[in-house]
């Protein structure tokens, strides 16, 4: 039990990130509603970014912006994950915009958001 708490304490952010990833993944796979799928996708992405950002953190150091003129690596956290996550956030907003645009078009055509039903209706129509 002690061991468990120790592990939990050491990896809390990562574990939360994995749980969030699971929630997002499940939403993306299981929900039929397209909007829900996109929300799940966003949750999944942010979970990965949380995981990535938690790698950069070092206990007791500050944000990677020059303060008091000290340029020692001992004082600041690792800036690499922050940069990667910045890129990731922009990718995920672009992806969700495109997906939402697709959703609007599909709704205009089929008047439903249920992706299974849309698939069925699509099979019913000719080219």
């Amino acid at each position, binding site marked *: 039990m002690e061991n468990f708490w120790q*592990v939990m304490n*050491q*990896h*809390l*952010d*990562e*574990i939360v*990130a*994995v*749980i969030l*990833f*699971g929630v997002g*993944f*499940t939403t993306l*796979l*299981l929900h039929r509603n397209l909007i829900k799928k996109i929300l799940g996708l966003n949750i999944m992405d942010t979970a990965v970014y949380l*995981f990535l950002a*938690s*790698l*950069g*953190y*070092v*206990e007791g150091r500050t*944000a*990677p*912006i*020059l303060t008091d003129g000290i*340029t*020692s*690596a001992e004082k*600041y956290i*690792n*800036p*690499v994950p*922050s*940069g*990667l996550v*910045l*890129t990731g*956030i*922009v*990718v995920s907003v*672009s*992806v969700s*915009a*495109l997906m*939402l*645009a*697709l959703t*609007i*078009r599909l709704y205009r055509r089929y008047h439903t958001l249920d992706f*299974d039903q849309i698939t*069925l*209706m699509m*099979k*019913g*129509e000719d080219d």
Partner: protein
Amino acid sequence: MTNRNDPPKNRFVGWLMGEENPLDDELELIVSTSQQEGRDVLSLEEAERQEEAEELRREKLAIDEKSQSVRIHSWAKHQGAHWLETLYRIAAVVLCGAIIFFLMTTVVALPPFGAENNPYNNEVSQRYIEQGIPETGAVNFVAGMILDYRAFDTFGESTVLFVASCGVIFLLKLNDHSSGKPSRAMLEAEYDDRHHEPKNDGILQFAAKLLTPVILLFGFYIVLNGHLSPGGGFSGGAVMGAGLILYLTAFGFEDTRRFFTYKMTRWISCLPLLCYAGMKSYSFFTGANHIPGGVPLGTPGAILSSGFILPLNICVGFIVMCTMYTFYALFRKGGM
């Protein structure tokens, strides 16, 4: 071999010859002979009527067929493939469970959170921090890293935004008529927009009048100070975009159209991207060929410092602002 069923070999040969169903031809033959008869015997008038009836019958047949297929599909959905869907759900849950399990075991085995001597706190991040100011001139090490050390990734990221905006235009932009008059779809969208969006809402307009300049200024501040403080082109651009969206929501397209036409937004998002590509091409080319870059870095901490980072941030800011505004306008009305 009975007569009733085609012998399997024949059916195979038939399939090989490209026939989907060996019975197809026979059915068609019957239909065509009946048509032939009709044409031969009947007079012109009758033939016309016949044709009309034929047309009707065909339409009806088509509708029947369509509803038939829909019915088959719905049958498949409700009874036939019900277990298939259950199977899919179970498989999905199992897959998610497996992925979470594997990730958990992995995560627990990873180096501990927040420790100093983790493998990723190595010479890479050390140089970004210790050499960052002499090499890039940026006080914000993250900005220095993404816009100078690893600038190629960031250029890719701006391109992702560009692709997404092109994709949204592809999907949602309504076409003008070639004659210059708005098309029916556009008029409908305009009507829809007027009908559903707030119009002349006093509180909103007052708030927007007050807030929009502040928001835009704040966004521009974030962009300009990207190399000095947290933020940068992306966050500042998003803030500016949000300010524009607020203005658009309060005052409608009539007001924004005076400046933000479709052409204008395209230019504002493409030109900075080209500038970005130009600047980065210059620094990539000189870097790879070991030619000194020759961009003055300035005094660290001053606003006009850190070489290309400030103009790059401004470019990114404009790209992001325009992309966000384009997204919103296209989602709302399919045009500007």
